């Protein structure tokens, strides 16, 4: 072919130009490659390293709370959790719908999560669903690799294996609210404040809202650390680097002095009654049982309780939210007669053998005071007056004493002050005198009121804890005893150090009288003296607290109601205080049965049975934490179970 068309040379020329332009473009690409790979290499190398390594905030494991024998009262529970990271999820709404196809995730909840995601930083994890069932967790773990931005992991949350038993003692933990954060970061620098805020945003983090959980927050919390992770673009963890220097420091375990088994038995013994009981080791002051029943289940609070459920607790007339043994104050009734008698002996206003005639009533001024026994007790001395709980004897004795001397001895026994145990709450009650009344009511003390205080009624108010302490001090013949419930943990600072010793001789008299109550003819609690252990008996004192209109618990709940409940509401509270064994006291107890009417009828049998249980269980046996401490090692949560 020799024909040369003009187009042929043109084509060749143009093709060379095209090749030149194309070659130039390729050269440009190689230039760009040179820029990225050679000139900017170092910068991208750093970025590449950062891309894969991530430090993830690792919350510390909260310390456990154990009983004196190492049984867990507050522990950890592993629970599956699904979260979403906006940055990796792309379309969050779509991703949530994907999740909803696998597990139950109602539309309303999806919208709530969307709202939360919108407010949260793009790279942060937002919890989609907590507390997955095993099946849901398995299903989600299997499918999560297909769902970018969806993270399925095991979270650790607080669990209270003994449910309601220690609700008021332990309190509960909850997600930190703004109020909690403000409280926790009080007095911190802005940096610390930010760190606290960040830490408590972690879905595993909880903070103590009440009880020991709140008091011992710092002890239990531990220190946050980091996990060093290699992640891929979807945020999926490829491997975890070993970084012990970054690991979180777990919180310390905390031992209470209580015996969880005794507590359980005591609550069971109350049955449907509402009330409180405190069992104390006389020797050490250890609280072995601290019962307030009915109670709430702290497990319900860990992930937030619904308003409806909370209202059920709040408006329950038996006040399950209220710690009756520590926050509840009741008139001590006749259980206070040992205090009045002791005051009389200390002041020397009466010889214990002096007999006072009880006709069933007592006149003072223009008024008449009644003895609980209409026909009267006849002539009674101190021993008989306590044994039979004669009111007239104590009207006379308290009149002779006057309110100031009576109040002074009441304080010696530990009334009228708040005992710091390391729990939230706790009330001091009232030991009234002239000064108190002028302050509280703005008027002077009337002598007639003293008679009411003489039988533990009127303005007098005491907590079950104080009554148990009083009993322990009588049983210990006046020795100073400081009640405590934290066996091993942060040491609570006592509000007022108690150093007022009581005369052992007077105490022996009280003991004899209390033994009379349960074990001699005419005693008001004769039927409850036998512990059923074939020997050791109980020594105690009955009491009945007058209910004016509103019980202390009801007043505290802030929900005062009338109607068909009013009948029960008007009934008196039944009280009983006791120690055992009568000849070698080890345990002291106080029991109050709200609206239980007669101390001997309802409170005494309960106290007797709890006491018998304590002795059977040997609740005051040496706690594990002192054993471990003596070997010099750290305290760990050993368990007997």
């Amino acid at each position, binding site marked *: 072919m020799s024909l040369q068309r003009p187009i042929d040379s043109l084509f060749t020329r*143009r093709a060379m130009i095209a090749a030149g332009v194309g070659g130039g473009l390729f050269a440009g690409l190689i230039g760009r*490659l040179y820029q990225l790979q050679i000139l900017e290499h170092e910068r991208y190398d750093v970025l590449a390293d950062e891309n894969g390594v991530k430090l993830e905030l690792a919350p510390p494991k909260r310390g456990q709370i154990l009983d004196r024998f190492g049984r867990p009262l507050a522990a950890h529970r592993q629970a599956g959790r699904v979260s979403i990271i906006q940055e990796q999820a792309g379309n969050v709404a779509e991703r949530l719908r994907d999740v909803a196809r696998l597990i139950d995730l109602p539309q309303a909840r999806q919208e709530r999560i969307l709202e939360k995601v919108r407010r949260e930083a793009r790279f942060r994890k937002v919890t989609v669903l907590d507390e997955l069932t095993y099946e849901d967790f398995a299903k989600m773990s299997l499918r999560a690799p297909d769902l970018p931005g969806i993270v399925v992991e095991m979270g650790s949350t607080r669990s209270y294996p003994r449910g309601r038993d220690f609700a008021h003692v332990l309190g509960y933990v909850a997600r930190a609210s703004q109020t909690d954060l403000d409280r926790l970061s009080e007095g911190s620098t802005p940096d610390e404040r930010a760190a606290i805020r960040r830490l408590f945003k972690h879905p595993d983090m909880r903070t103590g809202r009440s009880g020991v959980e709140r008091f011992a927050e710092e002890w239990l919390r531990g220190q946050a650390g980091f996990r060093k992770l290699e992640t891929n673009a979807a945020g999926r963890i490829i491997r975890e680097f070993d970084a012990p220097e970054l690991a979180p420091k777990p919180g310390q375990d905390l031992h209470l002095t209580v015996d969880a088994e005794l507590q359980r038995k005591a609550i069971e013994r109350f049955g449907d009654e509402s009330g409180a009981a405190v069992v104390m080791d006389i020797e050490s002051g250890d609280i072995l049982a601290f019962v307030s029943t009915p109670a709430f289940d702290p497990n319900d609070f860990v992930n937030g309780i619904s308003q409806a459920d909370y209202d059920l607790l709040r408006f329950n007339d038996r006040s399950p939210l209220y710690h009756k043994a520590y926050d509840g104050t009741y008139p001590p009734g006749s259980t206070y007669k040992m205090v009045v008698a002791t005051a009389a002996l200390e002041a020397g206003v009466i010889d214990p053998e002096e007999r006072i005639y009880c006709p069933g009533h007592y006149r003072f001024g223009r008024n008449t005071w009644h003895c609980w026994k209409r026909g009267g007790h006849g002539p009674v001395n101190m021993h008989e007056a306590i044994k039979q709980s004669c009111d007239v004897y104590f009207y006379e004795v308290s009149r002779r004493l006057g309110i100031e001397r009576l109040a002074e001895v009441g304080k010696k026994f530990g009334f009228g002050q708040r005992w710091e145990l390391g729990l939230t709450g706790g009330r001091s009650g009232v030991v009234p005198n002239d000064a108190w009344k002028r302050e509280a009511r703005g008027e002077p003390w009337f002598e007639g009121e003293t008679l009411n205080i003489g039988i533990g009624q009127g303005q007098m108010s005491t907590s079950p804890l104080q009554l148990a302490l009083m009993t322990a001090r009588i049983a210990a013949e006046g020795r100073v005893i400081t009640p405590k419930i934290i066996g091993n943990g942060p040491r609570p600072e006592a509000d007022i150090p108690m150093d007022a010793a009581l005369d052992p001789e007077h105490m022996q008299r009280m003991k004899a009288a209390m033994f009379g109550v349960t074990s001699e003819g005419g005693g008001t609690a004769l039927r409850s003296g036998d512990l059923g252990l074939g020997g050791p008996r109980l020594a105690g004192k009955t009491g009945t607290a007058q209910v004016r209109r509103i019980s202390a618990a009801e007043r505290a709940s802030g929900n005062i109601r009338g109607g068909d409940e009013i009948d029960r509401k008007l009934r008196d509270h039944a009280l009983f205080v006791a120690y055992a064994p009568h000849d070698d006291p080890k345990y002291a107890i106080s029991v109050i049965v709200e609206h239980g009417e007669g101390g001997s009828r309802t409170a005494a049998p309960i106290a007797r049975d709890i006491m018998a249980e304590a002795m059977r269980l040997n609740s005051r046996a040496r706690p594990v934490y002192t054993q471990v401490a003596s070997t010099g090692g750290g305290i760990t949560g050993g368990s007997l179970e």
Partner: protein
Amino acid sequence: MALAGSAGRLDFTRRTMIGQVTGLPWALILLLVLMGVIGLATLYSATYTNPEEVGLPAKQAVRLAAAFVILIAAGLVPLRWWLLLAWPAYAATLIMLIGVELFGFVRGGAQRWLQIGPIGVQPSEFMKVTATLALAAYYHKRLNDYSGGFLIHIPALLIIAVPAAYIFRQPDFGTTLALFASGGVLIFLAGLWWRVITTFLVAAIVSVPLIYSFVLQDYQRERVDTYVAQLTGESVNVMDDGYQIHNAKIAIGSGGLTGKGYMEGTQAQLDYIPEQHTDFILTVIAEENGFLATSGLLILWMIILGLGLMIAMRAKSLFGQFAAAGAAATVAFYILFNVAMVLGLVPVVGVPLPLLSYGGTVMLTTAACFGVICAVHLGKDEALAA
């Protein structure tokens, strides 16, 4: 169509089957095989850590083998048959394109796929080949008696613009652009006056903001935005395309001069780059093998395309010249768009890298393009009648 003036002594041996096979441009084919093997090795490295992707290299190997069979088969088809087929093939592809609009299904957010029997096909990809052949056939007829008028390029533009309009509506911006680019190259080779070219370039520059505001869809506009953001060094949003480009640059940049070693790329292995085994396969090569190997790979492509262009220039028939040049241009624009996109120079338009990216359609297009080039090589001495 008659065979004219191709009598020669060599012609006889050329027409035997063995003669035909040995006459193929084996240097070119072997370079393509080399490229395919590099692609397989890279794909293996890019996918072996992901259990869901383990089967992909084997699948790709089968495709690659099939592609070479198609390439050689297409190469052995006499050039005059290609000329005969050019218009019917173009018409068929156009009908399929319209079919996509009527019956197509959506994959990856755009309507590009047509189900024919068991396989889903993308007519827009075929169009790259058939439009090139149609253009070549058109210029073959019109330029044989060179008159050099401006108006003869108007029908050529229509040959491109009609299918491009359909493809743009699917929407597939990348293919539309590729079609105009390779078609534009052919119009340029056909001798479009420089003053027209200059006018066009000026108009193009002016129309850019207009297209941006009135033609592009939101998702396309976002892509352009992220592109501009990363060019001007503004902080990119680390999501979607900005994220993709950002991580692609990290992977490439961290490769350095010699790379981190085969199968050692941390970014690639940790799935930091979406679509790293398809459109972003170059990031794996760049990260693991470094600048020297990556630029070597681009030079290898330049050699391959250069060989294709030389075949075009040696062809006697205008159809051969234009078909081979158009085929080379089609492949060249794949590469240019893809590499520029991966290097963050142009917005992400979703163009694969021939013989390296995982995927069947581009493999088929590439095989067809080089099949045409081979056919032109074998038929270079045939002067086909207009």
